[in-house]
């Protein structure tokens, strides 16, 4: 939407920041699902978004911070029926993003990881971008169009 002074802003947005503990995996996906429900998504769309968020937050906790103390940030914006979610950490970063995107590849086989996290994110959202560098943290950005959302948010 465009504000009175001509700024292009999302129809709605929210930001979360929380500690890198596994209890917050459920907190993050439920918070995002509750926020997105204003677009009246189908159960399937909601499950797909929750799963994608859960994968990204879990990766931040396990791989980014390797279960040490850290901050995870999630922001969520709605642009004309498109949900844009960013999940960001200041952890160790990904050495080789292309390798990490390969199905079944995991940097931590000893943890019984399936290596499917990024593959699941890719198949459950429309667009997935990964920005990361060793020692510089990771930012995952995902976009998904919610089919039923025809009416702009914030209009009476």
């Amino acid at each position: 939407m465009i504000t009175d002074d001509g700024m292009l802003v999302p129809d709605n947005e929210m930001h979360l920041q929380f500690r890198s503990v596994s209890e917050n995996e459920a907190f993050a996906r439920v918070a995002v699902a509750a926020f997105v429900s204003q677009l009246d998504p189908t159960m399937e769309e909601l499950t797909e978004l929750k799963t994608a968020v859960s994968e990204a937050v879990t990766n931040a906790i396990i791989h980014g911070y390797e279960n040490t103390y850290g901050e995870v940030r999630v922001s969520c914006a709605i642009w004309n029926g498109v949900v844009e979610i960013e999940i960001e950490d200041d952890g160790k970063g990904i050495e080789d993003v292309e390798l990490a995107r390969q199905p079944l590849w995991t940097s931590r086989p000893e943890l019984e990881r399936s290596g499917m996290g990024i593959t699941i994110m890719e198949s459950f959202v429309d667009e997935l971008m990964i920005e990361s560098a060793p020692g510089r943290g990771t930012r995952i950005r995902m976009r998904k169009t919610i089919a039923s959302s025809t009416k702009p948010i914030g209009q009476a």
Partner: protein
Amino acid sequence: MTGITKVRSLSTVAFETLGSGGKGVFTMPVETTVVDGILLVRLAGELDHHAVESIRQDIETGLESVRHRGLVLSFRGIDFMDSSGLGLILGRYRSVKEHKGRMALCEVNTTLSKLFELSGILKILPVFESEQAAILALKEA
């Protein structure tokens, strides 16, 4: 859509994640029983990284009691699962196979099927409609 309907859909999301019996988001009850020498595990609630950490050992302890002969995982009570759940299944598959035992899955909904298909689990593990059918198949093997 009216404002009232929006409020209702918000609270529905929150309640659904709470699961049945008001057990909360952060518990992952797991019920294990032995039927004819086969370990039947009824998974329930949300199978994510947090939950998986606490139930892996429960299943392994149960497997020892049946000498890793057979394992059936039932997904009827699962409200949510991500790749951490896939890791749990693949880990138990390795463990059972190492001991030359057999394993099957049952009561899988369409959302879970999609995850299983994506990860190739359907190629290595049989899926049955009911617990009885899964147990029978392992017994006859």
